[in-house]
């Protein structure tokens, strides 16, 4: 009995986004492709399928869609968006019951608003673009000013995308993120640029031990030693060899900081421990990746609002 189209379709296929487009456009049964002539843009001809698509084949693992699936499966994307804060300084607070003194960093959120979204359909991933602070519109480029104008938010000093796992994490555009977005007791990751140390030697930059003070050393007490093998190692210095160079001033993530206090009125978020960077630097706060996702009491479900995305 020749295979009918219904039979063929019954074979379990990979999810539709894994299949090449040419397959989706025409049913599988249409293997005898109709040849058309004339203007191609009017009647697009089926493209030659570069993939070996037969029933029962495993889906490709090196495609963008498969990578996205893996990312979702690995659970390394936060459910909620983060916020932008300014590091204001460090202090210590006491735990009144145990008397423990806890060093902490005071961060301040300032006029955080959702400026735009990145969607899987349009951009390939879900993210919330959050802006904070304010800036004189005179100093904003026209294209950006138009962007803010269309989205209905004021011009923002700092703009940052926060990736979220799915459509549920897309907070509506124009929504304000206050300090109580983070709950006391939850854990967050902070990202900020650490203090620049300038051109640093290998001892400071990489923790090398340096060389002897004496024993015939001349002018090389704090320098690195050998850079690698000779003939056996290819007679070259490998890429990424740790050497002296510019240190600091780069993005640094501090994971799993506990939120000790929040104050939405004044935009204050107090986190346990230190956050990289000088006072006044921009700090990205988002739910900690390596802890269970926080239980939000009245989680906003923007999926209804953004159903068309």
């Amino acid at each position, binding site marked *: 009995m020749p295979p009918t189209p219904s039979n063929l379709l019954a074979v379990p296929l990979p999810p539709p986004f894994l299949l090449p487009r040419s397959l989706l456009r025409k049913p599988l049964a249409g293997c005898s492709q109709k040849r058309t002539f004339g203007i191609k843009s009017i009647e697009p001809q089926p493209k030659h399928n570069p993939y070996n698509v037969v029933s029962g084949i495993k889906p490709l693992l090196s495609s963008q869609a498969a990578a996205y699936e893996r990312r979702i499966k690995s659970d390394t994307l936060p459910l909620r968006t983060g916020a932008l804060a300014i590091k204001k300084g460090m202090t210590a607070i006491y735990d009144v019951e145990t*008397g423990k003194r806890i060093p902490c960093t005071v961060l301040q959120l300032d006029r955080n608003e959702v400026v735009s979204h990145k969607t899987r359909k349009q951009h390939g991933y879900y993210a919330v673009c959050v802006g904070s*602070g304010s800036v004189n519109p005179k100093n904003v480029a026209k294209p950006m000013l138009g962007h803010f104008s269309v989205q209905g938010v004021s011009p923002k000093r700092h703009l940052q995308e926060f990736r979220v796992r799915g459509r549920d994490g897309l907070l509506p555009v124009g929504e304000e993120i206050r300090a109580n977005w983070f709950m006391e007791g939850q854990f967050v990751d902070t990202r900020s640029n650490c203090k620049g140390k300038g051109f640093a030697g290998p001892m400071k930059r990489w923790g090398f031990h340096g060389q002897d003070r004496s024993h015939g050393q001349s002018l090389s007490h704090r320098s690195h030693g050998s850079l690698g093998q000779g003939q056996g190692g290819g007679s070259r210095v490998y890429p990424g060899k740790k050497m002296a160079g510019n240190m600091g001033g780069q993005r640094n993530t501090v994971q799993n900081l506990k939120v000790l206090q929040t104050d939405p009125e004044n935009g204050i978020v107090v986190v346990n421990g230190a956050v990289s960077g000088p006072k006044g630097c921009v700090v990205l706060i988002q739910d900690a990746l390596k802890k269970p996702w926080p239980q939000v009491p009245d989680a906003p479900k923007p999926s209804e609002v953004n159903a068309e995305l």
Partner: protein
Amino acid sequence: MSQPLASRLSTCCWRSFCAEMRPQRQFHRSMVTLQRGPVQKLDVPSDLPAQLLPQFPERYRPGRNRRDIVVHPSPRSEAETCKDPVGLVENRQLSVLDPTGARARLFDKANPDRAKVGDVLLTTFKSGEPVSGVIMVIKGSGPHTSVLLRNQLTTIGMEMSIKVHSPLVQSMEIAQRTPKRKRRARLYYLRKPEHDVGSVQKVVDQYLRQRAMLTGGKNARQGGTFRSRKGKK
């Protein structure tokens, strides 16, 4: 007259002849420029035939919905509301740890009766154990203020730095004021054997006795040593 001109034409080329004529032409041009005036921009007529429209740039075609840029107002600024968040957090801490402000007043620089270096301070912890000693240093400010006390217990010198606003501290009292104002802010010289004040236990006992007399023996439980001495008296 024609003779010299003809001779010139014959000797010179046409270029030099043109050069002679040029000033006249330039003058003519400048006259035109003067008459032109400012350029006036005209709107695209609305009743233009549709087949002509593609000749215009897109932005000039009628019916194009050109949106003006609107600068939306900024929401209320948290940074403007609270200029000093660190100070705010610290003040809130202080209001919890030291609601009456008595502890802060004890180390307030504006207070003439504050604790000074060289005074003997008696500190009681919530666990009940007292720690006393001579104040060597007063460090820090706000909720971070700390005092460094020095004492000798069983002939062994001991120094303890205590956070003034620690919730573990029950009370802080000045047992004895320094008789003479110390001329140093930090009395690190007390660590030298020749300057060490030794044990302050006697001073503290005397203070406890006096206090118990004033308060009518209500606080006699403070030290067991005191009770026994009272009995002797």
